[in-house]
């Protein structure tokens, strides 16, 4: 059996960092990724099959067949779902994970985001809790992520942001007419705005070129490799040490343990040689970073004599508190004099004024303008209500409004609940015979109140800016894991109430770590990837210390 110092499961935002930190510290690492390692040109620029519009498929893994999940709706009806369907709650499964095709927003959480229960109290039926660590514990790791992966952004004041010791390594992306128009609107309302930080080469850096501002951005792989993700930063660094072995098309089946319950390695299905075969590899430590759904699934599938309901499930918490972001916002039509540029990424302006301090409301969200839209994306979601759906009138509306549509939205901080969860399905299995994830529950109803407040503020912004038409609608109670999935292995000091300790180590298993959004206690009112990266640096450094 091959033996390593560490096995990392999942080569996304968290796992890529874990591999780099450990390999650069001189340890032998096996990095397992269930997806493939396609070149950008091999990730289709298909407008119907991408991570923004996935009507008939997706452009990265998993493949359509052989990887089902089960989704239980609010009426309790269970059904099999496939990767391109919304209820699957997919994140790109490919080398780099979601960072391959993402929108790159690189926000730090606010200090208050780590203290939600203390700040707001715990709504009845929710599992809202404080993190066991504070903003200050993560600040140096946020900085590391910003500089080592590469973040562009502005340095305007953000009313709830924590202190930062250093600016961004890359200059801001130039603002366009839409964001100038929104900025003027915010000024009229007396609102502060900020330039959203992005994991993007706004200038050449690390041997890769600058963003060209093309209109096929979010949901697609970057055609000039200006998106900074795990695949083009930390994973190449890990491989350059000569100490990290990367194996793609490797689906983890279980975390292996000895008779005492100590973690000894990983068993996985390897398809890299064509035919599938079951392989076991040994390691002194294992770091799981497969995303909040697949990490929970793997741990649940790793039952042993000492942990019969899954490894890390000592208190029945594993898989619970599944959350993402409850997006809400408002649409509008800009006056014709606001010029359309089609410039990607498109997210150029935000306000973080409503992340906290909203009277009678728990938490809040940032509000930002939307990524550049494809025509079919706009046809499906951007036309005003009442527009005829077909015929000459629909075509005319597309022609008149495609270049004038505006959408302001934000990731509402969810109030978690233990009933929103990942379990194993008792009958459905994937193509390897491994029980699949069964997703059920919704966010806590309190989240809806926050969302309604945020929706009102989004409309207010568009009114302040002078939009010609403004519309929006409330969202029903739903599960919102998706690309921002988090929470299923929440960290905490007390093993009775959490899955991992404050360093990301599974309680009771001192050589098993989690380095993805699973450990988030709450998910902030921001896109979570920079927090996932910062925590991955922090947890991997602890893991490296444990190996010394």
């Amino acid at each position, binding site marked *: 059996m091959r033996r390593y110092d560490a096995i990392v499961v999942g080569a996304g935002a968290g796992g890529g960092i874990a591999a780099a930190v450990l390999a650069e510290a001189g340890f032998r690492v096996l990095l397992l990724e269930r997806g493939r390692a396609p070149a950008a040109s091999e990730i289709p620029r298909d407008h*119907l099959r991408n991570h923004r519009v996935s009507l008939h498929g997706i452009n990265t893994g998993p493949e359509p067949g052989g990887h089902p999940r089960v989704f239980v709706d609010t009426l309790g009806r269970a059904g099999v779902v496939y990767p391109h369907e919304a209820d699957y709650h997919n994140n790109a499964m490919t080398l780099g994970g979601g960072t391959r095709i993402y929108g790159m927003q690189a926000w730090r959480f606010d200090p208050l985001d780590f203290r939600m229960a203390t700040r707001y109290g715990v709504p009845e039926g929710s599992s809202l809790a404080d993190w066991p660590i504070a903003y200050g514990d993560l600040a140096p790791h946020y900085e590391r992520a910003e500089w080592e992966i590469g973040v562009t952004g502005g340095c305007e004041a953000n009313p709830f942001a924590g202190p930062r010791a250093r600016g961004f390594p890359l200059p801001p992306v130039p603002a366009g007419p839409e964001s100038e128009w929104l900025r003027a609107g915010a000024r009229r309302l007396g609102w502060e705005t900020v330039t959203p930080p992005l994991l993007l080469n706004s200038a050449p850096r690390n041997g890769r070129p600058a963003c*060209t501002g093309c209109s096929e951005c979010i949901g697609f792989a970057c055609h000039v490799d200006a998106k900074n993700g795990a695949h083009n930063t930390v994973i190449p660094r890990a491989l350059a040490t000569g100490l990290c072995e990367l194996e793609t098309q490797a689906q983890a089946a279980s975390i292996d343990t000895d008779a005492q319950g100590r973690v000894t390695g990983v068993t996985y299905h390897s398809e890299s040689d064509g035919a599938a075969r079951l392989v076991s590899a040994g390691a002194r430590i294992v770091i799981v970073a497969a995303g909040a759904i697949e990490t929970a699934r793997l741990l649940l599938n790793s039952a042993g004599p000492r942990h019969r309901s899954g490894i890390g499930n000592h208190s029945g918490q594993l898989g619970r508190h599944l959350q993402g972001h409850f997006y809400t916002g408002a649409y509008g039509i800009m006056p014709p004099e606001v010029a359309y540029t089609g410039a990607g990424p498109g997210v150029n302006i935000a306000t973080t004024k409503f992340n906290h301090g909203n009277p009678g409301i728990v938490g809040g969200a940032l509000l930002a303008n939307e990524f550049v839209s494809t*025509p079919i994306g706009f046809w499906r979601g951007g036309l005003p209500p009442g527009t005829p759906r077909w015929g*000459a009138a629909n075509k005319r509306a597309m022609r008149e409004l495609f270049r004038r549509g505006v959408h302001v939205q934000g990731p509402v901080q969810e109030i978690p609940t233990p009933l929103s969860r990942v379990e194993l399905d008792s009958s459905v299995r994937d193509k390897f015979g491994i029980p699949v994830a069964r997703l059920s529950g919704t966010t806590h109803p309190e989240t809806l109140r926050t969302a309604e407040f945020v929706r009102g503020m989004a409309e207010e912004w568009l009114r302040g800016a002078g939009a010609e038409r403004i519309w929006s609608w409330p969202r029903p109670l739903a599960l919102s894991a998706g690309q921002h999935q988090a929470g299923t292995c929440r960290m905490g000091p007390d093993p009775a109430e959490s899955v991992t300790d404050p360093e990301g180590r599974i309680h009771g298993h001192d050589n098993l770590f989690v380095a993805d959004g699973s450990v988030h206690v709450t998910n902030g009112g921001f896109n979570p990837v920079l927090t996932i990266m910062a925590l991955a640096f922090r947890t991997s450094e602890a893991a490296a210390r444990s190996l010394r």
Partner: protein
Amino acid sequence: MNPLSAAEHDLLRALLDRLIPADDFPGAAGTGVENYVTGQLAGALSGRAGMVAEGLRGLEAEAKARHGKGFLELDGQERDLILADVESGRAGGGWPVPPAAFFDLMVNLAAEGYYADPGNGGNRDGASWKMLGYDPRVGPRGGP
């Protein structure tokens, strides 16, 4: 490959061209949207091919019941009046499939073919993108 008969294919093309008609810019028929639709019905949406064929039969029957002639023999306005009733479910009885569901599928497929990338089979020469002024690959800060 094409799951529809030649007659059904002609009817499909005519239907799609009313959903996205030509004006100063080409419509569905002028940009190959029917190729996108038949490609989908032969592939990812093969489970819906029967519904589409039956819906097209329903449309033809509706035209004959109202005008005593086939859909292809009607002028644009007559076609649109029928389609508005199909959309709202007000079409006459005897439809082999729920008319509104059939119509909803066709509206979505028409837009997908017309507005998605030409690689999907419709939007020939990027005609709809030219109409909208959308150029996906060339950004204001340089091209690929």
